[in-house]
């Protein structure tokens, strides 16, 4: 695995410093220096990169010591971040879910995408940076587009103020589970879901498991219907296999005001979410501002979490249900090279799998970092997804006069008028 002696020593040093830095705290403490993260990127050692990403994930999702709840449960939700009012009180984490996008009949009927409920959470450092610099407001972005710091990579572009290194952002993806009976959950198997021209959204996945809120542990197989297909000998799993929450009436009502959540509930349950139903965390994308281009990790749940490349290097510091998630990581848009010899691939089946091939490969051949590098204001479409180096000469995301939004599409797309 290692071609020299220096590399394992470096990795050990980095790992030691990382572990030292993970004291008992609700915030990940990224004590590994930016220079060392940059070394990890340059050396393109996938396993070293994965070990680092897992350690950060362990800190974010599992915490340290005896803390039961994940740190991100107390982070700021996107509703609180992209809001004109600083007086409104929001609950933290997914429990603060609130969106203004209407779920009225017109909106619901006309959105064409396979719906996945997502909610993005920001730690204090990321939240304060966006709020203090008014990056939640298009007025501020318009001003920065003219007066911001000139971008040193893209000619004629300007930059938002650089995020602090402590900034961490987590985009969470959730799946509804009925409080009664067994709910089907599609599972993405890399060997059975090859890249498709039309995208590989969860409705095309070849296998499901049954999530049974009444089961204390994995139990006998069942037959299930999902998305008009019949599945036999379905592996039944308990809620404790996931990070999950149960809905109270207030949250169920707020979720059903959102077009995407409303539509997903219809697709999965054939009805709106109700008090007592559950949301299980099926995926998450984690971005840490450890380098200027951020480090990007994609997590997703699997019922065979010990198998395959995406399980490699998982540390023992990850506990309980968090051991059931697989992971990919990107430090770079190109390296380490993918199995097909092309630029590095890093995607989340739940979040990017459904994206069709727009000429650079579909979502399952994309790279988080390469796509997020295009984030700019005024916003352009984030599709088609891509990987590899940017192509500024024929990409409107890099036109002169643009404001780079620090790799964050959320700023470009969700800033308030």
């Amino acid at each position, binding site marked *: 695995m290692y071609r020299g002696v220096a590399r394992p020593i470096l990795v050990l040093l980095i790992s030691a410093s990382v572990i030292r830095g993970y004291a008992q705290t609700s915030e990940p403490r990224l004590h590994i220096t930016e220079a060392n993260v940059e070394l990890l990127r340059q050396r393109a050692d996938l396993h070293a990169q994965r070990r680092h990403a897992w350690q950060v994930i362990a800190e974010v999702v599992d915490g340290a010591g005896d803390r039961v709840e994940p740190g991100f449960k107390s982070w700021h939700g996107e509703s609180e971040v992209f809001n004109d009012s600083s007086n409104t009180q929001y609950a933290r984490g997914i429990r603060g879910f609130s969106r203004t996008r209407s779920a009225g*009949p017109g*909106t619901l009927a006309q959105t064409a995408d396979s719906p996945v409920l997502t909610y993005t959470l920001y730690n204090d450092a990321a939240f304060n940076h966006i709020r203090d610099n008014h990056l939640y407001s298009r007025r501020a972005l318009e001003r920065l587009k003219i007066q911001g710091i000139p971008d040193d990579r893209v000619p004629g572009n300007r930059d938002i103020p650089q995020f602090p290194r402590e900034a961490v952002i987590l985009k969470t993806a959730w799946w509804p589970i009925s409080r009664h009976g067994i709910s089907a959950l599609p599972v993405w198997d890399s060997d059975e879901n090859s890249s498709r021209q*039309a995208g590989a959204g969860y409705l095309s996945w070849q296998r499901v498991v049954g999530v049974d809120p009444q089961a204390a542990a994995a139990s006998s197989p069942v037959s299930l219907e999902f998305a*008009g297909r019949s599945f036999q000998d379905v592996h039944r799993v308990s809620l404790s296999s996931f990070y999950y929450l149960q809905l109270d009436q207030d949250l169920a009502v707020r979720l059903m005001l959102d077009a995407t959540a409303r539509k997903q509930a*219809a*697709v999965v349950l*054939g*009805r709106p979410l109700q008090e007592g139903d559950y949301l299980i965390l099926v995926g998450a994308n984690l971005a840490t501002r450890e380098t200027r281009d951020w480090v990007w990790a994609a997590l997703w749940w699997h019922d065979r979490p010990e198998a395959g490349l995406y399980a490699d290097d998982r540390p023992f510091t990850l506990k309980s249900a968090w051991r059931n998630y697989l992971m990919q990581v990107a430090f770079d848009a190109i390296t380490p090279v993918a199995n097909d010899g092309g630029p590095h691939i890093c995607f989340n089946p739940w979040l990017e799998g459904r994206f069709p091939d727009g000429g650079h490969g579909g979502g399952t051949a994309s790279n988080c970092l390469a796509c997020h590098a295009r984030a700019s204001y005024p916003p352009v479409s984030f599709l088609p997804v891509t990987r590899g180096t940017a192509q500024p000469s024929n990409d409107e995301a890099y036109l002169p006069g643009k404001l780079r939004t620090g790799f964050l599409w959320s700023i470009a797309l969700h800033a308030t008028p």
Partner: protein
Amino acid sequence: MEAFYRRLGSGLCGLALAGGSSSAFLALTGRAEAQKQPPQQTYMYDPSAADEQPGIKYFGAAKDANGALLKDVTFQLVTPQSTFVFVTDEQGRFRGNLPLGMTPDKVSSKCFKAGFLMTRIDVRPGPKAPKLTVQVDCFLKAN
């Protein structure tokens, strides 16, 4: 188109009142009525409406074995380029836009709802018109 005509209809009504052979009083009343109309009854360009977008309008309904319209039924329309998912509203109907060229021969359609089995799906291209339409109706029975 139907939304277009619905919205246009209220405007035409105001025009007819103002431009007909009725008295000036009626015309004045018509204008006053038009001014009082809430915005949603006046035709306004809404780029997010399926009727306004370029492409082919797919629409239809889902019914159970008794012919009752069913809400929260998913219509999955798969094309070579992408998969489109629509859900029926409170009235058991859906409508949406597919890209130009996505005629029924290039689209695989199905519908589903938890607790139901699909028994039949009818796909019917609409009449020749400036905007092509395709009607997709789905029939399901309880499991």
